[in-house]
């Protein structure tokens, strides 16, 4: 089958590639671009381990074709930290609040939480739980994930207040 030319922005970098239309975004990221942060967990649109941010939406990249991301802006866990290695407040909070054990769900969980906090900077516990209901974690029981997201939200809000005061 003929390949299709696509171009997209991945973690701020311009990418040009030829892909088979049937190539799923998760396979394109992992196998072609070696962006292995997004994981393949269930491969059936349930677990959320493959979650990436696509044009401002959290999507399960196992259920999107790479050709559908043509022209899009894609953010993965690899794009969360700053260039100097400073962790994103969500990454830092997951670390400090023990928001992970095996870590398999973590890239998807943090990428999803990133978009959740963009849309709702001060979510209630219930809103966090509903907001991450498309991401499964088999280790933590979610308690510390929720705490980590709450802590990151507070940290990010504090940062904004500080910026405004300066």
């Amino acid at each position, binding site marked *: *089958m*003929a390949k*299709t030319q696509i171009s997209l922005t991945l973690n701020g970098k311009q990418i040009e590639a030829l892909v*088979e*239309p*049937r190539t*799923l975004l998760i*396979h394109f990221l992992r196998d072609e671009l070696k962006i292995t942060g997004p994981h393949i967990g269930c*491969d*059936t*649109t*349930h677990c*959320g381990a493959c*979650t990436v941010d696509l044009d401002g*939406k*959290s*999507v*399960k990249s196992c*259920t*999107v*074709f790479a*050709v*559908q991301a043509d022209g899009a802006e894609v953010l993965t866990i690899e794009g969360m930290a700053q260039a100097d290695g400073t962790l994103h407040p969500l990454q830092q909070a997951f670390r400090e609040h023990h928001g992970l054990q095996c870590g398999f769900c973590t890239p998807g969980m943090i990428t*999803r939480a990133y978009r*959740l906090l963009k849309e709702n900077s001060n979510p209630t516990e219930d809103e966090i739980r*509903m*907001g*991450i*209901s*498309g991401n499964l974690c088999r280790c933590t029981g979610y308690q510390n994930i929720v705490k980590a997201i709450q802590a990151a939200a507070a940290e990010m809000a504090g940062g904004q207040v500080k910026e405004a005061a300066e």
Partner: protein
Amino acid sequence: MIPGAFAYHRPKSVNEAVALLADLGEDARPLGGGHSLIPLMKLRLAAPSNLVDLGGIADLKGIRADGGDVVVGACVTQHEIIASDLLASKVPLLAEAARQIADPQVRYVGTIGGNVANGDPGNDMPAVMMALNATYELAGKGGGRKVAARDFYHGTYDTALQPGEIVAAIRIPDLGKHGYAYEKLKRKIGDYATAAAAVVLTWDGGKVGQCAIGLTNVADKPLFAEEAGRIVAGSALDDATVKKAVAAAEAITAPASDRRGSPNYRTKMAGVMLSRALARAKSRAG
């Protein structure tokens, strides 16, 4: 899992899309959000040789008022349904139902058009559209036509859509002041309904004016519970009336036995969902 190979088409207009679908024949499938079709393709339960992606067609997007009606483009996502101020004020039932579909990631991508056109009895929006008395505006190479949601569903994956036709928009009539509810029993987030009921009713002078009821996933297609709605209309929604309406709704169900429960259980749960939905719709109608 890797789907079978296909050729990818991304038309810019509805006319271009339906012309492609007509020319490519039955082996071409329209792609909306893809969250029903892509999983089927990964399992090789579907292997279309051509996909016509509707995602680049501006005319299929947007939610607008048209006179008293509300018109929702087929490629509007469930996420956009939930976020819409127009729908919140005119047809809040849609957001209530959308919130109960799948999970946030799926709702960012899954479309209302795909949900109603798919023909899976587990889809939630068809019963909602029946309760709302919505009309589907179809587009095909030969032109457009309209089909009422209540007449659209024939069986599992069997709808009024002809080969090459797509649902382009959904038109919801002006309901005026009304009460509404979508009650869905499911085992967990992301699951299809064990049973669900959609209710739209008006309340006037201590009595129900009109009442329309749709049922999800308790037959090989969504059900319009016409008789149950007739029983409720004109009543004060007293216990005896609710009991009669529930019995009438249960009588038209024919659920499959699956991991969600036995047919008897699912029929009874349809009744429970209906009685809850009636009570909640009434509480919002006054």
